[in-house]
């Protein structure tokens, strides 16, 4: 099985989010980047499939060299080789075009990625990649089983679960519980250094969408603590302040 796993690098979930340049740019100073959690789900499932029935995993990232440590972490988790398209992604279409360009250079049975990145929450790339490559695209893939040259994929739908079957090749946007996140072991960390890691230039893509500005959500109000024996006061606050009664 030949699997392409597309990964994003996103701010650590404990990062303080701020914007600069008149709220037009994300303030990256002091931000620690991590492997996108949904992408880790996708990669972890790919590693499980490889462990079960063999194959090869290539990870693909569209981004700058500052993300190389995160890509090497993906190699440490179990990918066999990596490729980075050296560009600062502008929008989902730009990323999808780069992925499609790389994917066309090889025969992949499946192209897996997270259902969305947890920073900009676009959730569009898998659909666009499917369209650009003429492949079916499924999201969110919560379970993925392989039978011969097709996959059974479960999606969560309102009130239940939907099982789909799809022939290779396909694109899937993954999320838990498709596979539990993997953390690299020491042997993987050492092995990652000697795995093939290619850096390529991007293909030209014209920008379709521009970010105009960002704004932070309103500050949460402070938490009020009411002593356990002050029930009347609690009811008054719920009625008059919170207005939920």
């Amino acid at each position: 099985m030949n699997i392409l796993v597309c990964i994003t690098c996103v701010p650590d979930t404990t990062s303080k989010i701020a914007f600069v340049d008149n709220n037009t740019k994300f303030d990256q100073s002091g931000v620690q980047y991590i492997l996108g959690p949904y992408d880790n789900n996708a990669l972890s499932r790919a590693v499980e499939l490889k462990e079960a029935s063999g194959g090869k995993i290539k990870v693909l990232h569209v981004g700058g060299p500052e993300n190389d440590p995160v890509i090497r972490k993906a190699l440490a988790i179990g990918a066999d080789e990596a490729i980075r398209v050296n560009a600062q992604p502008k929008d989902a279409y730009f990323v999808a075009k780069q992925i499609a360009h790389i994917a066309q250079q090889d025969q992949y049975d499946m192209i897996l990625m997270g259902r969305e990145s947890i920073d900009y929450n676009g959730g569009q790339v898998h659909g666009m990649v499917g369209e650009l490559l003429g492949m079916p695209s499924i999201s969110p893939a919560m379970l993925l089983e392989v039978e011969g040259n097709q996959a059974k994929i479960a999606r969560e739908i309102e009130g239940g679960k939907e099982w789909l079957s799809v022939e290779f090749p396909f694109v899937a946007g993954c999320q838990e519980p498709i596979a539990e996140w993997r953390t690299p072991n020491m042997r993987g960390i050492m092995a990652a250094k000697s795995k093939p890691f290619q850096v390529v230039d991007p293909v030209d893509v014209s920008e379709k969408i521009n970010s105009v500005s960002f704004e932070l959500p309103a500050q949460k109000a402070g938490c009020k603590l009411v002593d356990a024996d002050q029930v009347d006061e609690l009811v008054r606050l719920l009625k008059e302040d919170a207005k939920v009664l």
Partner: protein
Amino acid sequence: MTDQVNENIQMITETIRDFGSKEIIPHYRTWDDTQEFPIQLFKKLGELGLMGVLVPQDYNGSGLGYLEYINIIEEIAKLDGSIGLSLAAHNSLCTNHILMFGNEYQKQKWLPSLATATKIGAWGLTEPNTGSDAGNMKTTAIKDGSNWILNGTKNFITHGSSGEIAVVIARSGEPGDSHGMTAFVLEKGMDGFRAGRKEDKLGMRASETTELIFEDCRVPDSNRLGEVGEGFIQALKILDGGRVSIAALSVGIAQGAFEAATKYAQERHQFNKPIATFQGVSFKLADMATKIEAARLLTLNAAELKMKGVKMTKESAMAKYYASEVAVEVANDAVQIHGGYGYTKDFPVEKYYRDAKLCTIGEGTSEIQKLVIAKSILN
């Protein structure tokens, strides 16, 4: 420190935090209460490659260096000092002794199972009546044909009961002769070799500490590490590295206590303000952070010298002495910042306080470290 080592450390830190949140944090309180040695946890640490950190990959180890090693010990100790202690004892004492002084046959025989935690390691130097004065040990090893016969008792041995491979130093020559002791590898199941009483300890309770008892225990000469009479000299070299381990362990405990205290000081309100805004508390936090930074740098310096293969007896003793005293001071301050809550088991700082104290005692007391430092300065 190179970018490569920094990147390794970053990745290892993430791995330990992920692993710890699932495998250590939910259980450490129970292990502490029941004084249970969680052997299954160590098997999982073995799968991660944390039980043979310094062992080359040819022997199924991780092949990492001392800088990564001290980071591993610090990160684990931040979560649970006793797991950090066991990890340090397994890696830097038993496993490292075989790695440094074993012949090729011995390394092939024992290192792969130690590095993967198929077997847990123990190391025996201390005896009931010879702690700091280890050179006067009473356990004897008498040559009998192609075997040695060991008699005596070692105590305060980490993994004395659960360990399946033990490196033991015994007297093969005259008392008081530093070249009169020899190191042997003992394996669980050998006739006349057994664990004795398990200690009921103040802290580090998940780390198993027992006696090792030898009663006419026959050990093949092929289990002897290095030359006859070199055991004590080997042990001193192992302790140079061991002190770096305990220094890193101390830094981890101090950092854990400091982070708990900082969090609490920002959450706890008195007089309508977080207590962190009071100078009495914030200055305490500043002192704690500064001491930890200094302890970490001393530890890093000793580890870097060790990596270079330079003699670092003085520097490792300084790191161990300073970092362990800092761990006790910082844990004490962390309890103080928590006030009454710090004295209860509802908050983690009382455990850091109990665990920290071991660091000023194990692998040479602070007083012995000062002797080592003074001797080094005056010579």
